[in-house]
């Protein structure tokens, strides 16, 4: 197990390096010159040349790559072209905001999705099942920006219950978190339902009932604990997705997070910011996947990693 974990951690290095190289090259292949964009409508050749020099983009791409890579290995992601502040500081400002939003959304998704899924599976074809499936269907099919606007109109403008935009770890969080949780909630609910249904048809469930166990005990102890593996898989990948996927929510609710930062950075050709943010997303994604894989044997003793 320890060896497996170590192996996985070592595998992270080439993955991250590959992603970093790809992003570095992609940004430079994209048309659009950061210095000319920064100079704007009014500036002359000399200003642009000075800007290029100060941003170090007047050097050959190879030199830039080695420079950025060496800085990165020393824990320095460079300075933003636009604000001239360290990329790490800027991400540090926005990341907690995204994390709070994503974690709240995840709690809502798991807290509502799993119980709904259980109810739907154990009372299959009942009214509860239909309602749950309907919620799930709506959750996966409603576009986030539409849902966000509807929430704002209903709860913000009509009922005046919640603020419509801005950052705040209080009632400001309610609408964006609901909005961000919908997709994940639907996914978790459907996965819980189908995986639980699959288990409920197994022979050992019938055996458990014939032993005289209560339905509650069978469902929780025997069925749910065995159904949890696919749920965790879905949960894990969607948590990683949430961090980057709150982007639209961040834009709609003016929530200053990393998703919004990334879009701004790309349109402004802010190379160091894009590189830093993609690196962050890649790290979160790979780490999350690794953690899920490591958690499998703990959840299901039948799974063993050899070497």
């Amino acid at each position, binding site marked *: 197990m320890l060896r497996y974990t170590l192996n996985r951690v070592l595998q992270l290095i080439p993955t991250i390096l590959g992603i970093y190289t790809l992003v570095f090259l992609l940004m430079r292949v994209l*048309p659009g010159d950061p210095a000319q964009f920064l100079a704007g409508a*009014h500036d*002359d050749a000399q200003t642009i040349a*000075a800007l290029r020099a100060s941003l170090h983009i007047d050097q050959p791409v190879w030199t830039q790559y080695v420079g950025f890579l060496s800085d990165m290995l020393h824990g320095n992601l460079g300075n933003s072209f636009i604000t001239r502040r360290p990329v790490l500081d800027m991400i540090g400002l926005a990341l907690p905001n995204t994390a709070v939003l994503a974690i709240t959304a995840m709690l809502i998704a798991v807290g509502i999705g799993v119980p709904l899924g259980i109810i739907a599976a154990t009372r299959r074809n009942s009214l509860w099942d239909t309602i749950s499936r309907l919620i799930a269907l709506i959750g996966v099919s409603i576009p986030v920006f539409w849902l966000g606007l509807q929430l704002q109109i209903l709860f913000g403008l009509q009922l*005046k219950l919640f603020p419509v935009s*801005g950052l705040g770890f209080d009632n400001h969080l309610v609408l964006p978190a609901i909005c961000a949780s919908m997709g994940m909630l639907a996914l978790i609910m459907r996965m819980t339902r189908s995986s639980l249904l699959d288990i409920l048809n197994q022979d050992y469930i019938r055996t458990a009932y014939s032993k005289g166990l209560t339905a509650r005990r069978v469902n929780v102890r025997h069925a749910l604990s065995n159904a949890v593996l696919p749920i965790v898989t879905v949960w894990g990948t969607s948590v990683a997705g949430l961090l980057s996927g709150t982007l639209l929510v961040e834009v709609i609710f003016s929530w200053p997070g990393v998703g919004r930062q990334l879009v701004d950075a790309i349109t402004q050709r802010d190379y160091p910011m894009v590189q830093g943010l993609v690196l962050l997303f890649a790290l979160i994604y790979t780490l999350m996947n690794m953690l899920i894989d490591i958690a499998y044997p703990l959840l299901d003793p039948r799974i063993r990693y050899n070497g």
Partner: protein
Amino acid sequence: MKQLRFIVILLALTAVFSTAFAQDATSLTVAFDQSQPNTLDPAAVGIADEFFVLRNVCEGLVSYDPKTLAPTPALATSWDISSDGLTYTFHLRDGVTFSDGSKFDATAVKYTFDRLANPTTGTSYTAGLVLGSVAGWSDARPSAPAVGQGTPTVPAPAPSDGISGVKVVDPSTVSVTLTAPKPSFLETLTLPGAYIVANGETDFSKGPTCTGPYTVSEWTPDQQIVLKANDSYWAGAPSVKTVTMKVIPEQSQQEVEYEAGGLDLVTVPPSDISRIQGDATLSKQLQQVSNLTTVLFRINLKDPVMSNVKVRQAFAAAIDRETIVKTVLQGQGEPAYGLYPPSMSAYDPNFKPFVYDPAAIKQALADAGYPDGVTLTIRTDQVEATNDVLNAIAQTAAPAGFTIKVDSTEASVYTQDRNSCNMQLGSIIWGFDYPDPENVATQALAGTSLSRINCGYDTLADASDLQALNDKAAATPLGPDRDKLWQQFDQQAVGTDAAAIPVYFPTTSVLINPRVGGIPYDAQGNIQFYLIKLSS
């Protein structure tokens, strides 16, 4: 019963969390129009959101009248201009202090202009507009080849004694020497680059140390900037004590926030006007604000098709400006036939060189050698209102024989292609930096700056005449004579050469909370918080 209890708890919770927006008569909340400031260093600022903050925090030697836009005293109480028009002597206001408590005097003025002249610190484009004709500028900034005409070089270090044309005479007097008479010099002193900062200040990361009616008390990137009133402001303490400037990047979200009561004023795009006019409450809060802006086309005169003056004239006439303003812009603006907006004294309402007559235009195109019409590509960046107008232009120009493709790309790509003349026609929204025709004529059309707006200006048959006319107008003192010369320039550059093709003068529609009481915008379209008095 259980469910009922759940619903009661839910309702109680929402009641606890629900918001009532606190509004009082001393605090105002607004949003940044486009995005947010990246810097608040007067010598480095370059975008509208940055100007928006600085105009309320800092001030220059000269300000302008909010209505007439004429230069008025600010940190200088008066000035003398030598008879040859080359030396300006400014008498500074006494008893003014910076927000850090230090005294305002001539050394701060000298420090400010030296910083602005230094190519390392004076990165704002306004540096050239303010100091371009001041003695010593060419030492600080040796001239560089225009874009696409030779390899530009990194600037040489600035002279250690700063810009030689700005001199401290005594603690309350500063003299500025120009290399050539420039009557618009006073107007350019109202630009943010010329805002006076405290002597020796180098750290602007928390906002500048200035003398204006407000100071920056909080700056949280991506969220907000909070201004606090400077109660010791020399012209009297402001009535609004706190101004919160929020970062809400999506314009539609700004409107939602306004309707929820979280903003005191908000800009509205043309596409939303009809919805607001249909709303009983909002329609009463809708106002039109004029600003100094001309929307026009930049033209690549080296392009084989656009180099033909008859094609340019035909295209200029094929734009049905009246219809576009009425329909696409919902009346938010005026058709533009010349370069100068209606709020400028050089504006001539009778100047209408082009008539929209599709049949006649088609004939003119045929006479010019294009019996089958002309295909043009208009480049633009991704501004929604602009794209709507361009698509409408494509439609109105079609019956006149023009097939127009609108190619919309990201701003960064557009800027690069513009600088390298890689486009036939491009749309520009030209916001005037200062209220003078010189700003668009010299900066955009004539002179060395030309390559930025029009490529191949020197290929015009009358290029030297236009340049001479521009130089003469720019050297003429402010007043009717100067206006007449600028009108002549307009007639020749636009009317005869169609070297610039104006489309419309936009006005801005804004929703203003009634408690603001009136329209807090000046004739340049800027908000001055100092002038606002809120009713509770």
